[in-house]
């Protein structure tokens, strides 16, 4: 049984299920309740997170397991790491991924490395939920796509769902994974509606999904750009070009076999990523193709990404900052 839910509601449902099922799961972050604790004033759950994603949790599970934190990201993530290493299974919220600037150490030098440094004698079952991406007129410091940065760090896993059903299943899998997982929520997708199965289910980390079958060219997307790819594929179909669309879903580990399989099938590949071009997922996909996929290549591998610039505020600039179906179509035409 499934029904239509928004991306935000699907995540909210996953959090309820995870907290119901395991008393060690806690939720902490800035305004995850919002005024959480003014119960006497009838104000318990004023915000439930900036997007309402955590709404209702404090009523259901209480202020001990659902914590509004100080504006102290290093302490939020650092304490979450310490809690995870000692028996809890925290879901910490980093309100915007851009704030990794003030909280990278707990991820880079602690969560990612404790197990290795300790010779395998610790587990860090931490999930960090974070809102990322451009398109919301939020400007340079609230719009970045930094999952390449977290994917570059051995010891972390990074996922980025493109639809409500995947968001729910991937979040449940992330929370139950015994490794630190960075869970990226593209902010412009939060109110997108989609069919979401009821109940408790997990989508395995590290597995891509084929969103659309095709034979002439492969389009690889992540999060928001999966939709860009599908739009392009539909337009290309009208011109008789059959594009296969792959949703990476997990960025670390990345599903190399799925990428190689679609490349073998089509011989042509375009990767679409809303991140800036240097040292990111798009380069990793291209590098994989020219290494293990070399024999399948009938054309260059094209990367359609944001430009090497900060995210501009002006709507007219932000709209061209993001990859568009038109740019994908142009890239495909160069390959045929």
């Amino acid at each position, binding site marked *: 049984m499934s029904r239509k839910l928004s991306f935000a509601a699907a995540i909210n449902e996953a959090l309820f299920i995870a907290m119901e099922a395991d008393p060690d799961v806690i939720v902490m972050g800035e305004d995850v309740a*919002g005024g959480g604790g003014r119960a006497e004033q009838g104000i318990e759950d004023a915000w439930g997170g900036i997007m309402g994603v955590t709404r209702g949790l404090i009523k259901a599970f209480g202020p001990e397991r659902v914590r509004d934190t100080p504006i102290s990201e290093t302490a939020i993530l650092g304490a979450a790491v310490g809690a995870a290493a000692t028996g809890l299974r925290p879901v910490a919220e980093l309100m915007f991924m851009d704030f990794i600037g003030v909280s990278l150490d707990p991820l880079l030098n602690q969560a990612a490395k404790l197990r290795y440094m300790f010779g395998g004698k610790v587990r860090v079952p931490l999930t960090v939920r974070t809102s990322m991406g451009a398109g919301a007129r939020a*400007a340079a410091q609230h719009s970045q796509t930094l999952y390449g940065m977290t994917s570059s760090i051995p010891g972390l896993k990074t996922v980025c769902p493109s639809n409500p059903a995947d968001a729910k299943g991937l979040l449940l899998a992330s929370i139950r994974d015994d490794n630190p997982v960075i869970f990226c929520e593209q902010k412009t997708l939060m109110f997108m509606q989609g069919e979401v199965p009821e109940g408790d289910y997990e989508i395995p980390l590290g597995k891509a999904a084929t969103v659309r079958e095709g034979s002439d060219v492969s389009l690889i997307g992540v999060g928001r750009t999966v939709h860009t790819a599908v739009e392009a594929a539909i337009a290309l179909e009208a011109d008789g070009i059959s594009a296969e669309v792959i949703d990476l879903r997990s960025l670390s580990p990345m599903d190399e076999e799925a990428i190689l399989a679609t490349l073998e099938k089509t011989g042509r590949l375009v990767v679409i990523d809303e991140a800036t071009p240097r040292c990111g997922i798009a380069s990793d996909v291209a590098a994989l193709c020219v290494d293990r996929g070399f024999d399948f290549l009938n054309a260059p591998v094209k990367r359609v990404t944001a430009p090497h610039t900060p995210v501009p505020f002006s709507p007219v*600039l932000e709209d061209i900052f993001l990859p568009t179906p038109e740019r994908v179509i142009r890239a495909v035409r160069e390959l045929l």
Partner: protein
Amino acid sequence: MSLSREDLIDSYRQMRTIRRFEERLVDLVTAGKLAGFLHLYAGQEAVAVGVCQHLDDRDIVNSNHRGHGHCIAKGVDVHGMMAELFGKSTGTCKGKGGSMHIADLERGMLGANGIVGAGIPLTAGAALTAQIKRTGGVAIGFFGDGATNEGAFHEALNMAAIWKLPAVFVCENNLYGEATPMEFVTPITDLANRAASYNMPGVIADGMNFFDVYAKSGEAIDRARRGDGPTLIECKTYRYMGHYVGDPLTYRRKEEAEEWRQNRDCLETFETEALEMGLIESDDLRQIDSDVEALLESAVVAAEAAPYPNPEDLLTDVYVSE
């Protein structure tokens, strides 16, 4: 530091401009003409204006996400600011920055900042320049109560204190950080006391009263100019509107805001006290009110009419001399 008639006129004009600027933005958003994250300063005007009245172009101001008031008080052009919020090429930052990043170094405005607490080390750096280059200037950092829980606050104040930097750190304690009341996240009520960790003077000012802010910040700024080091000033204040335009304001009682507006509004307090001083009359103020309306009206009209940036602008200003 006695205030002249001109000072009073100028101060009122700025506070009034800030108040009405923010109120205009609410109308514009409601009318669907503005997008973006807008954090309004209404209610806190006495802080920005009370402090900036002491400053000139040698002096640097650094701000936070709630920066419109600091920009206006430091003399940033209102037309440019309005155009910036519309994302137009005539904006202070060519439309590339937006509300959280308005800056104008010619006016000594080192920028609003979207990262809570991140401006505080920048303020220390601006003060370092003043100290080493002997500019005679001071650097002012504005930030909120919530920002004092960021590590950047702690590190920057310690560095400023040990180096006796010519800086003044102005904490605008409006009792909330987004939807979270300060008492849920901060175990003390007087943030000025945090100055003791750095052997720095900590002063409390009535952030709703221009004259109190003016007096106390004046002393701190003089101290900094004399080379005697930084001061932390906590201004007790209140934001009238939501954390951002669109905030449902579900986390605080309506009456709470009403009480502040009724009894402590900075514009009304200013008017009463200023008239008592006998240097200005209410006609002067009403004249300013209508000047301000005219200014804002022309700013909105100009901003709406102004052109958007060109597509090429997306790629410029990333590096010097691309």
